[in-house]
């Protein structure tokens, strides 16, 4: 199936991108994570999806690009391209409330507010741990700012005595 690019193409592409899940956080789509920055539709160049990496070294970005192209090809956009941008830098502020609820239901504490204030060197003990995604307790602590993926830190809930992950706010 070859699509004819038209006025509604951009919306169709966005609908396809809603089905492409992040490989490391499979409850969120690449759009919900804010990885997809724009979709350009051009008679000459076809469909271009503009993406930005979450972290500079995120190993998932190549998988994400591959998944985006595969989903678009499956939907009939055979010659789509992916372009990377670094500006503006990715931030967890782009994750909407609805997606935060999905993260919490999945057992990952959603990102809080970015703590960009307070000088360039801020020590870990100044940072507050997020509430537990399982029991909502505030009796929590950050065990390590680094977890199974670049975007997550490891926390501990003293109330329900369970470890949990937090989506780091950056």
């Amino acid at each position, binding site marked *: 199936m070859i699509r004819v690019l038209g006025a509604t193409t951009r919306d169709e592409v966005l609908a396809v991108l809603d089905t492409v899940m992040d490989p490391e956080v499979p409850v969120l789509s690449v759009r919900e994570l804010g990885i997809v920055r724009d979709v350009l539709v051009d008679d000459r160049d076809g469909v271009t999806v503009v993406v930005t*990496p979450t*972290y*500079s*070294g*995120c*190993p998932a970005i190549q998988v994400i690009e591959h998944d985006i192209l595969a989903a678009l090809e499956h939907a009939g956009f055979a010659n789509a391209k992916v372009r990377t*941008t*670094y*500006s*503006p*830098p*990715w*931030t967890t502020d782009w994750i909407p409330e609805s997606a935060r609820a999905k993260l919490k239901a999945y057992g990952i504490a959603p990102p809080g507010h970015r703590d*960009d204030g307070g*000088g*360039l*060197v*801020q*020590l*870990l*003990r100044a*940072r507050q741990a997020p509430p537990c995604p399982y029991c909502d307790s505030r009796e929590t602590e950050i*065990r*390590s*700012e*680094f*977890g*199974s993926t*670049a975007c997550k830190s*490891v926390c501990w809930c003293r109330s329900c005595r369970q470890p949990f992950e937090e989506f*780091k706010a*950056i």
Partner: protein
Amino acid sequence: MTSPAPSIVPVPRQKPNALFEYLLRLGDDRLILGHRLSEWCGHGPILEEDIALANVSLDLLGQATIFLRMAGELEGQGRNEDALAYFRDAVEFRNCQLVELPKGDFAFTIARQFLFDVYDVVLLDALASSANSQLAAVAAKSLKEARYHVRHSGEWMLKLGDGTDESHRRVQTALDSLWRFTAELFAADDVDSELSASGVAPDLASLQPKWESLVREVLDRATLTTPAGLPRPARTRGGRSGAHTEHLGHLLAEMQIVARSHPGATW
């Protein structure tokens, strides 16, 4: 037509493109330090630290990839980030010597990381307003990562310095031996002068007081002694011009062996 006789007059060495050199410095600092940190993978003192150091390493390698790719594109000779990482020899690397020193014990790795991380946040914060918009964008992105890197290494400076006698002794020893290598971070040369004059890069000398006060603040809290005297900018040739310690060659031998044994291999 006969070819001209070989000239005995040496061809004047072409003046290197300042931005290309600068991008190599940014990329190589991150590539080499990232590699050093990766040596802890599977050897960390506790699981959380094994994972933390590997994570920081991954961030630095990701940043290195971007800076080296930009350098290759600017050069326009068909060298991508892999060609620059795997097919240059030690004299062509532009990283500072601080990052190439062997990883030492955990205290040494943390002390080196802390000194670099503070430099990194100060540098990237300034670079984020570079006149070169692409450089500014990548710096702004990297700064977000550098901020939690220094949160990690700074926290460990407190734990080790204000910890046991043994941890205090080890981290103080590491600081004392690392201190002289920090001078190179602020030693501006022609590349820095040219780029700071055009607003592309910050004036390195102006970053040093800021770095020093941020470092001292944490060291004081950690009950550690800041080594006497601000290190003066090195007058000798250093890593920025390709003069390295013996350690870089050994690191590169390990890092480059697979790529050089199987050039062009993919998987």
